[in-house]
Each structure stands twice: as C-alpha cells, then as structure tokens.
C-alpha cells in the first residue's frame, strides 16, 4: 500500500517514517510539507493512504481534503486540537495524537489494511469517480467522508453543489458541470440544469409535462427530468 506523509514539520515527518518502518505493507513513497505540495504529490503518486497533519501553514488538512476529488484513506495526525477531535467523534475517523504511540499506529494501520482488503481497490487512473469512491465534506464544524453511492442527489447552488446523503445536505465548493464530467455516468445522471441524481436511489418514474419525466427518489425528493434528458434516461434504463 502506497502512502504519503503530509506534515509541515520535518522532524514530525522523520519520526513518523521511523515509526512506519516496521510495517512492510506500507511504503511511504513521498512526503509533503503543506496542502498545496500535498495536492501535487497525491495526484502524482496516487497513494492509497495519507497521514495528514491538520494544522499547517496556509491551508489546513481539512482544506486539503476538500480540494481532492477522490480521497484516499486518511489517518489524521495532530498534537492537540479540540475542534478536530470533536469532528472525529461524530464520524469515528482515525486519528493519531502526537507524539504517536506505536501501538495506536499499529491498530490504525491494520484497520486501513483490513478495510482495503474488503473493498475493491478503485482504479484510480481511470479518472471517473466510482460509486464506492469517497469524498470529504466539511460543513462548519462537522465533517464526513461520504461514499458516493450514499449520495442520492446533487443540487446546484451557484458555484456550490449541495449533496444529499443520509440526513445531511452540506455544500461543497464544486460546480455541477464539473461534477457531471467527473462522476461515473453508469451511476449518476444529469436530470436537468440544476440536478444530478443517483440512479441507484430512483424509486419510481412518472411521465411529466412537455414529454419530460418526474423521478421520485428513495427518501422522498422529486426531481424533474428535462425533455432532452428524458430520451437519454430512457435509453440508459432500457439497457
């Protein structure tokens, strides 16, 4: 498993390298010193796992995750950060407190390895976001790793897109057109100018005005499919 360490302090990176040396399943392929550096190196190496410091100069670790389209496994490393820890409690993400305890590191790494065995490793190079890919979403103090398959609806709000998953509907800084290009067309369908729907969440379909369709999603939302898109929609479903 390929990993990258993201931390602005050289000594912190060195220490983590040393602590990771006994783990033969983890190859640290690179280190990054800030969020922008990390974005570059992540796209270069396509790691399966990143060790991520939260407080860094410029952008924080959270800002970094928000900018990634496809988020690898993440283990947070932090010295002391009440806010971050609060966010983790809600989501039960993995985090390590610095100085890192070797036993805690071992259990965090094992958890990631186990998780990766269970899930099919996504083909990272293909470029399209698959249903089992995850994105990082932050809304105020709360944050989530969201599996795309759990997202039933994406709604455009200017430069932002509102994601609907479980009981949450946070905004992410992406345009709907951008996501339309990146999302896997087998799962996600552009219903109209403002909406993309997850086909796996469609409950029923009714004919609608002007030769369009009205789709009801599990969870209750109703989305209109424009006439032009309806033809495409029928095509996909008849396959």
């Amino acid at each position, binding site marked *: 498993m390929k990993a990258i360490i993201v931390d602005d302090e050289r*000594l912190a990176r060195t220490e983590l390298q040393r602590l990771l040396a006994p783990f033969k399943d983890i190859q640290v392929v690179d280190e990054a*010193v800030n969020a922008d550096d990390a974005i570059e190196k992540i796209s270069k190496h396509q790691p399966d796992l990143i060790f991520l410091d939260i407080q860094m100069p410029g952008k924080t670790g959270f800002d970094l995750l928000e900018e990634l389209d496809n988020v690898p496994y993440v283990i947070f490393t932090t010295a002391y950060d009440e806010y971050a820890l609060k966010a983790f409690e809600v989501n039960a993400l993995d985090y390590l407190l610095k*100085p890192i305890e070797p036993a805690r590191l071992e259990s965090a790494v094992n958890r990631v390895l186990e998780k990766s065995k269970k899930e099919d490793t996504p083909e990272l190079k293909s470029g399209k976001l698959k249903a089992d890919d995850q994105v990082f979403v932050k809304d105020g103090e709360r944050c989530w790793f969201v599996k795309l398959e759990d997202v039933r609806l994406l709604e455009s709000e200017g430069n932002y897109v509102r994601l609907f998953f479980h009981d949450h509907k946070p905004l992410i800084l992406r345009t709907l057109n951008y996501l339309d290009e990146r999302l896997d067309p087998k799962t996600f369908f552009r219903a109209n100018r403002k909406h993309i729907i997850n086909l796996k969440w469609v409950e029923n379909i009714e004919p609608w005005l002007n030769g369009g369709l009205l789709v009801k999603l599990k969870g209750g939302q109703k989305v209109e499919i424009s006439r032009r898109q309806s033809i495409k929609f029928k095509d996909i479903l008849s396959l």
Partner: protein
Amino acid sequence: MIFSVTSVVVFTTRLLTAQDFSVGMIFANMVNISTVILLWSAIYFFIHYFENLKRSEIERLVWEAAVKDFELKTLKSQLNPHFMFNAMNSIRALIEENPERAKTALTQLSNIFRYSLRIERTETVPLEDEVKTVEDYLALEKIRYEERLNYNVEIDPAVKSIEIPPMMIQTLVENGIKHGISKYPKGGELRLKAVSVNGHAEIVISNTGSFSEEEMKNSKGFGLDNTKQRLNLLYGSKSEFNIVNDNGFVNVILKIPPGGRQNESYNS
C-alpha cells in the same frame, strides 16, 4: 397549616364530648399529644429548613468566589498544550537524530514547565525570569519550525529587574509565532526587545506579517484582550498597550511602570 389542624382537633373533641365523655377524653388526649408532636416536628423542620437555606447560601457564595478566582486565574495565561505536545514530538524525533540537542531540549522544556508551575502563586516576576522562559520557548519552537523561524532577543540590562505579570511576554510571543510564522509556508521572523524609557520598561514584540482591526474583531483575540485586562488590573493608567504595523512587521508595544503593581490585590 398547624392552626387548621388544631381547630379540627378542637372541633372533633367537642363532637365527641356529647356522645361518650371518657372515650372522648382519651381520644382528645391522644389528639392533643399528636398535635404537640406535630407542632414540634414542624418547628424542627422549619429550623432545619432555614439552616439548610443558610448553608446553601454560603455554598453559593463560596462557589461564586471560586468562579471569580478561576476567571482571574485563567487571565493568567497558561502554557499552550498544543505547544507542549508538539515539542515532545520534536524531542522524540531528535533523540535518534541529535541526542545532544534532544537532551538540551528536554531541559528547556522542563524549565518552561517549572516556570509555569512557579508563577501560579505569583502576581509579578522579574522581567529577566520571564525572558529566560521565552528564550527556552523560542529555542524549542526553532527545533520545530527549523529554518522557518528566525528570532532575536535583546534586553537592556536596566530593565532586567522590573516586575512584570508572568507569562505576559510569553503569551505575546506565542501569539506572534501563531500569526507571524506558523501561518506562512516560508515562515518569518520574531523579535523581542526591552529597553528603558524614562524609568519605564518598553517591551516590543514584533513578528512578520500585518495586522488589521477587522481580523482582530473576527478572531477571538483572547490573548490580546487578556493582556490589556491584566495590565489594567495591575497598573491602571500607568501602563500602555499598543499594536502597530511597521514595515512588514506587527509590533506589540508594552509600557510597564517600575516598582510593581499600583492597584489592590485581586487575588485574595
């Protein structure tokens, strides 16, 4: 309540007198005794009630005093746990890389820790003691930030023994690192200078960057408000506190009068 009970008892006694005198007497006696017992317990109850009330009032006052004391204690800034853990993490890495430096760092960290324990019971310390702590602190931050932190400390011997509130310079230096160094990928510079001006100590803490009123309002500038409040409590109008932008640096300027505090003690 007691009166109504008594009147009922009297009423019942009268009723009984007409029917059976002796049985009535016994019953009335019983009722009378129970009235006395009832009355007695009522008095007992009330006395206890008021005693408890008084006690809880005292407890409330003690609690309030404790809260106030706590507020004043928190005004005395404490060591930032984020710094402590990061320093320990750096030292852990240094143990292998540069054991000599690791040893020094550990000593510096214990100096800072000891100082922070010592000042819990003091209102003011000689400037030179505080500066010693700040120097240890900066040396540790230098290990962490490496080439990203450059610092310079310059103290006029004339002000070395002026009494200042403990952790005041330390907090401002921490602030300077937070806003002037840790924010920038390339880091920055921090300077601490203390000179004597007309018998006052003028202490200037500068860091790379710029400061805006707007930002100050948005961020919970606890550090700066805290410093102002403490200076005011201790020296009243004889102290000064200013922040200015100066050529790519933010200067925090403190003026502290000689001869310690001017106001009544706030730590009873």
